[in-house]
């Protein structure tokens, strides 16, 4: 099978490319970033997804399956740039898929689509609208890209579209939102709150996408692994220290005293849970996670031991 991966130089992209190459698929990767030791069998194209050169990649290789992962997820980038890449890139990918006869397009999105709020149900199902935008406008471009990808389901009925909303990943690479929060020794928390967080081992995320390629399910699917755990347990099990801060003070404390800097919107995620129901994906594809939450936390903690302050 010919598979094109956009954003192939990202952590999940690289691993997916390696796995697919090893399975004997022809893999084409698009990314503007550097990619050290490209696996044999991967055609890497350093092009911008929204430029003409990317169109040439689609025209030349005519991939059967396209996995779209070229989205900026961290919030350090300017919002205009994020909109250009996340929404513009997604639009370009689906246009090219339709124009060059791809059979299956997979959009890899995130479970933060649903937002965190006091009134939202504990387990989100795929039919729910995004409710967190009012409190976390920085996520608007990712939500828009998710919904735009989903619109391909009715706009291009001949193309099988799969939208994945993947929960937090954790593992030895230290990549991802959750890993970023847990990297330092001190992890901020809002006093009096302890949200449930859903995490899966980063290798299971790769497996889930590979499963979606094989099973080719049509629709929008939450992807998750083990049942959720409170943030406090995650912090404890990875050898970190929870620093509960009263809500009125937390905005001022972040970025100081060894605490990471977080955007105001992200504070909602420290108060209320975002937990998704992944049963539809399991039913449609037969996906089963093979690594549990303890393994993900242990491997992360081993790769990133909590740095103790220098002994006096």
């Amino acid at each position, binding site marked *: 099978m010919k598979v094109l991966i956009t954003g192939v130089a990202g952590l999940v992209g690289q691993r997916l490319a390696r796995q697919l190459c090893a399975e004997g698929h022809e893999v084409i990767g698009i990314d503007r970033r550097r990619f050290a030791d490209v696996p044999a069998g991967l055609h890497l194209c350093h092009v911008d997804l929204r430029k003409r050169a990317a169109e040439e990649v689609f025209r030349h290789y005519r991939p059967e399956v396209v996995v779209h992962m070229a989205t900026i997820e961290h919030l350090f980038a300017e919002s205009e740039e994020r909109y250009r890449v996340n929404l513009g890139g997604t639009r370009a990918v689906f246009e090219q898929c339709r124009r060059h006869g791809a059979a299956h397009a997979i959009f890899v999105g995130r479970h933060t689509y649903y937002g965190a709020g006091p009134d939202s149900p504990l387990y989100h199902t795929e039919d729910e609208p995004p409710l967190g935008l009012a409190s976390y406008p920085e996520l608007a471009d990712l939500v828009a890209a998710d919904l735009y990808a989903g619109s391909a389901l009715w706009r291009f009925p001949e193309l099988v579209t799969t939208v994945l909303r993947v929960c937090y990943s954790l593992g030895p690479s230290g990549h991802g939102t959750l890993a970023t929060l847990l990297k330092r020794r001190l992890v901020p928390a809002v006093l*009096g*709150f302890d949200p449930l967080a859903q995490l899966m081992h980063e290798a299971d995320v790769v497996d889930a996408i590979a499963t979606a390629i094989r099973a080719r399910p049509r629709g929008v699917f939450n992807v998750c692994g083990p049942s959720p755990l*409170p943030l406090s347990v995650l912090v404890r099990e990875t050898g970190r220290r929870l620093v509960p801060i009263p809500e009125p003070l937390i905005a001022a404390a972040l970025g100081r005293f060894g605490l990471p800097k977080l955007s105001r919107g992200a504070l909602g995620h420290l108060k209320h849970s975002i937990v998704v129901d992944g049963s539809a994906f399991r039913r449609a594809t037969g996906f089963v996670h093979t690594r549990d939450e303890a393994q993900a936390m242990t491997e992360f903690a081993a790769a990133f031991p909590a740095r103790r302050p220098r002994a006096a």
Partner: protein
Amino acid sequence: MQLAGAGSLHAELEDRIERLEIPWNRFGYDPYGASKRHLVRTLLPFCWAYRHYFGVRVHGIANVPARGRAMLVGNHSGGIALDAAMVIAAMLLELDPPRLAHGMADRFLSRWPFLAVLAQRCGQMTGLPEHAERLLEAERLLLVFPEGAHGTEKLYRQRYSLVDFGTGFVRLALAAKAPIVPFAFLGGGEAIPTVANAYKLGRRFGAPYLPVTPWVLPLPLPVRLDIHFGEPVVLGGTGDEDDEVVAAHVERVKLAIAGLIAHGKRVRRVGATRGAGATP
């Protein structure tokens, strides 16, 4: 200082929570955020009060299914959720194997620091239809007070009355094909005699109101409490019926509860004159 019987109760509670038929993960959490450790720690004082402070009497416990989905539906009694806590304690202490009753709490609870976490760790969730559907689907035991906040608002003189019932619980029971176990809770109004409700002050704290007793704070008196469980009501349908049909079902459940309250009042009078617990 240790309260009388707290030590042995602690061991019993630990054992009972261990015997709950719930899929705990290796950290002792269930998929809805309840935790074994928190259940023991939080429910211990309530279970102690159940046994030794109120001396709760439970009648008709055999009407609660030992396994499988079911909905406990009853009247509110007392200005704070003492009734819910005592029903939860009853399900843990009186059933064998014990069951965890999942209360469907008012929305304000999830906004309160500490209390929101504590409620979740004890399996108590916001009263959203999504939560009820999911828990019934998982064959759990639901605890519903269809009077809602208006039920806990009842003043001392209204303590045995029933206010309007919401209808959502009947639609959920119909759709999930879950039996409804009606129950009457008696004595909450005497334990916490509400003389007034402070609505403005309550709203300031994000709650609908705060109950005011003759001694201002809603601290309960050591009054004997009675819980009467009635025969399960099994409704046939899909949950998609017209409002009139649903209203008739609601009325049936309400009548069953009113009947249990009337019966319970007689039992309490007899109990008071004889000075001992009488079982019908």
